[in-house]
């Protein structure tokens, strides 16, 4: 094993060890003290960041991509789940970036959630999130990517419902998890379809294999499924309404999940499949249109938000929409830079959100007056009626919640309630039949 692989392995293993340590201690009902967890996490994450720095340096020095093949986790009847990681020039910097951000948030959390009853729970979920993110970023196989994707989803939902004494966070956490799981079906279906047209033994393009030529319909179908999956994770239309709901969680989780990293998992996944976009032009156009529309809607909705975290949430959605548009145009490095810059800025904004008023007063003191209100360019050209319509559109958050509720959630609740009702009636009828037999 080369030094690059060794350092990368260390960085990937450290969050797992931290998670196991915290998890086992909680399971055995002897949770570690806060005074121990904080330094332990700091040392662990620092070690991971250092290892990734070394790995990045070696990657640049050697100017070659490597892979980390830990063999097969399991195999049977011609199928194998390989533990295969990519260590190339786009993966390693992303891993370093992710670990840095998580390290910053961890340091913030140690103080922000000091003596909070859910401190241990938060730390556990944060490490689960980091494990998932590392898997998504460095996955060399589709199965590993799906595994990481699921870790991201679960940790996200449990952190939204962090303040579980209140019903709002619980409701929102469940809603977000439902959207994630529903969209994950599309992700798994896309991968199964790809498996069906791809020989198992052949390396995938992101493993350095030859890009296969898929039938047009297959490529379009797979990309559309991936787009559906990504829409859920990255809060594109029509699923954008979950992101402000996710702000119920603590500020550190809002920063790391919905400002920085988790929300960008979708664009990163699409960048991995950029080779597919070349073969699926129609689906790529759909991606571009979806990104643009998401960006436009979110920009309008953000204008009428009265709460800072909701405002930041919609600002995030706006940028994610633009990133999707950039990806649809066939760019690779611009979206990556956009992601990095956006994640950094948004994390800062989320972490500073509790101090917003204080910061604003400091700024106004510095400039010696009130800050000017930003106006939407071109709004003067619209008629008052049109402006009113736009205002309603923005105030109702593009009616996305109502759309989702009306088209999916309420019908689903009605169908399942009707199904339960039918079964209960059948049970009653059968029970009556049984009692009649007893009476005879």
């Amino acid at each position, binding site marked *: 094993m080369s030094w690059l692989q060794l350092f990368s392995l260390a960085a990937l293993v450290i969050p797992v060890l931290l998670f196991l340590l915290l998890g086992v201690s909680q399971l055995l009902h002897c949770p570690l003290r806060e005074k121990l967890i904080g330094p332990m996490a700091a040392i662990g994450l620092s070690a991971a960041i250092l290892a990734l720095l070394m790995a990045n340096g070696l990657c640049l020095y050697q100017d070659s991509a490597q892979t980390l093949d830990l063999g*097969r986790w399991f195999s*049977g009847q011609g199928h194998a789940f390989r533990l295969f990681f990519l260590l190339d020039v786009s993966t390693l910097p992303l891993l370093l970036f992710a670990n840095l951000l998580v390290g910053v948030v961890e340091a913030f959390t140690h103080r922000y959630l000091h003596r909070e009853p859910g401190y241990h729970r938060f730390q556990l979920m944060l490490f689960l999130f980091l494990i998932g993110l590392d898997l998504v970023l460095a996955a060399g196989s589709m199965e590993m990517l799906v595994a990481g994707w699921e870790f991201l989803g679960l940790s996200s939902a449990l952190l939204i419902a962090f303040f579980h004494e209140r019903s709002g966070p619980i409701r929102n956490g469940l809603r977000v998890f439902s959207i994630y799981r529903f969209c994950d079906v599309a992700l798994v279906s896309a991968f*199964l*379809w790809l498996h069906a047209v791809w020989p198992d033994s052949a390396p995938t393009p992101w493993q350095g294999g030859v890009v296969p030529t898929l039938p047009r319909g297959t490529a379009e179908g797979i990309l559309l499924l991936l787009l559906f999956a990504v829409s859920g994770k990255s809060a594109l239309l029509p699923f954008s309404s979950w992101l402000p709901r996710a702000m119920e969680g603590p500020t550190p989780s809002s920063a790391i999940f919905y400002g920085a990293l988790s929300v960008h998992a979708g664009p990163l996944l699409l960048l991995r499949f950029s080779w597919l976009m070349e073969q699926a032009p129609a689906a790529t156009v759909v991606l571009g249109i979806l990104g643009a529309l998401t960006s436009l809607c979110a920009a309008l909705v953000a204008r009428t938000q009265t709460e800072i975290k909701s405002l930041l949430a919609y600002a995030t959605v706006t940028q994610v929409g633009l990133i999707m548009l950039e990806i649809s145009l066939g760019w690779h490095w611009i979206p990556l830079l956009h992601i990095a810059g956006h994640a950094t800025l948004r994390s800062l904004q989320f972490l500073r959100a509790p101090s917003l008023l204080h910061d604003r007063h400091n700024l106004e003191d510095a400039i010696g007056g009130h800050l000017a209100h930003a106006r939407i360019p071109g709004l003067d050209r619209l008629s008052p009626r049109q402006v009113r319509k736009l205002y309603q559109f923005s105030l109702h958050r593009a009616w996305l919640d109502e759309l989702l509720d009306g088209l999916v959630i309420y019908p689903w609740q009605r169908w399942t309630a009707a199904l339960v009702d039918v*079964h209960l009636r*059948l049970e009653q009828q059968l029970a009556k039949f049984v009692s009649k037999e007893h009476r005879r």
Partner: protein
Amino acid sequence: MVTPFLGALSTFLAPDRWRYRVALSFSGISLLCLVVLLFWHTFLGQSSTRLMVAGGGLQIDPFGLPLVLLAAFLPWCLLVSAPLRGPEGKEGAVVLLLAGLGEMLAMTPHGGAWWLLAWCLTGFAYLTPHGESVSPHAHHSAQSRFRRGAIQARFQLLGVGLGLLLLLLPASRSASIEAWWAAPFLLVVMLRGQLFPFHVSFAAWVESAPLTRVAMTLSLMPAAYLLTLPDLQLAPWAASLLFWISLLTSLCAAMLAHGERRARRVVAWIVLSASSLVLAGLVANSDAAQLGAMISWLATSASACGLLMTLRAVEARRGRQSLDRNHGGYERMPVLAGSFLVLGLAMIGFPATLGMVGQELMLEGMSEQSLFAAALFSLISALNGICLLRTYFRLFCGQQPRPGSGQACRPRERLAFVVLIVVLFCGGLRPQPLLNLQRQALNLLDASPKP
């Protein structure tokens, strides 16, 4: 193998205050004997261990080995975590009896007389005691629940009777030739496996029966044993039909779980959904799916047992739970809450658990047969995951309940949950030895004709 039966008898006859200790002792001895046998088997490196008893034979082969361990291990978990005093005391005897039957099913030659006896007797576990204590949250009286639960018992006994009739007829095994024999076989599997439309009163049975018995009964999966008879050749149309019926049952159960408002019924439907997927995998037209189903069989049995154990622990503290509101209490019983979540996730195939290994292989295998079936499989898994999280939030999150209700997890309960979780995770992190064993088991079984 005799120990569980002796234990059952001793537990039944023991005074109430001794029942728990007697049941736990016999369960521990049985588990210890099997562990010792496993080490001896591994040390000698034999492919099977054959003991001749009363003209029949006991053998531990790759197919039976994990199942017999499960049959000994799960009762121990159930008994360690339950006090079994009062009316529940005799359930210890039932658990041991079922453990013995499970071991018989795994160790006796499949389809032989002893196997058949054990397979039939498992059906009688569905005969539940009449009525239970009624909690303020129950919407129906205990009598009504008993009547509804009795329907499922009738289905099971009908399946037992029909199965006995068919299995005793040698010509019925070669069902691929005499295709009309496949229809009654199909009916037996549907009855014993609670498949559509015989799933109707399944949740009612779970509501009316003691959870200890439910957990043990469901972990045995007699329908899966029937589908893995070595000389069974199911007609192609029957295998295909059974595959789709199992998937339909699984989907239906997942949807029902979403619509239910009572915790027991929700968990019952989730468990049925998972076990139906196992049956679908066993008759699928793919070796990978069958191998995955064998693994999922073990994972689903263990995790379903664990899930029902946690529900039993919650009900012991608060009574029957309705999911109309959030009940709270996480801060007082974090281990229970965590165990519920982790065991439920293991059942639906969350990564790093044994369930995931089985589901991954099943998914790959089913995609070879039909992409639509594989997509349906992942949809069902997603629905079960959503329902599980909803149940978790309802049971453990929300406003704190009134103080002084003594809800902390007892050390024995914690021990059982921790051991079960460790087994599921260790099996998931290092699954290859078990996979090799199950691959050997598949090779020993006759392949069914492809649907």
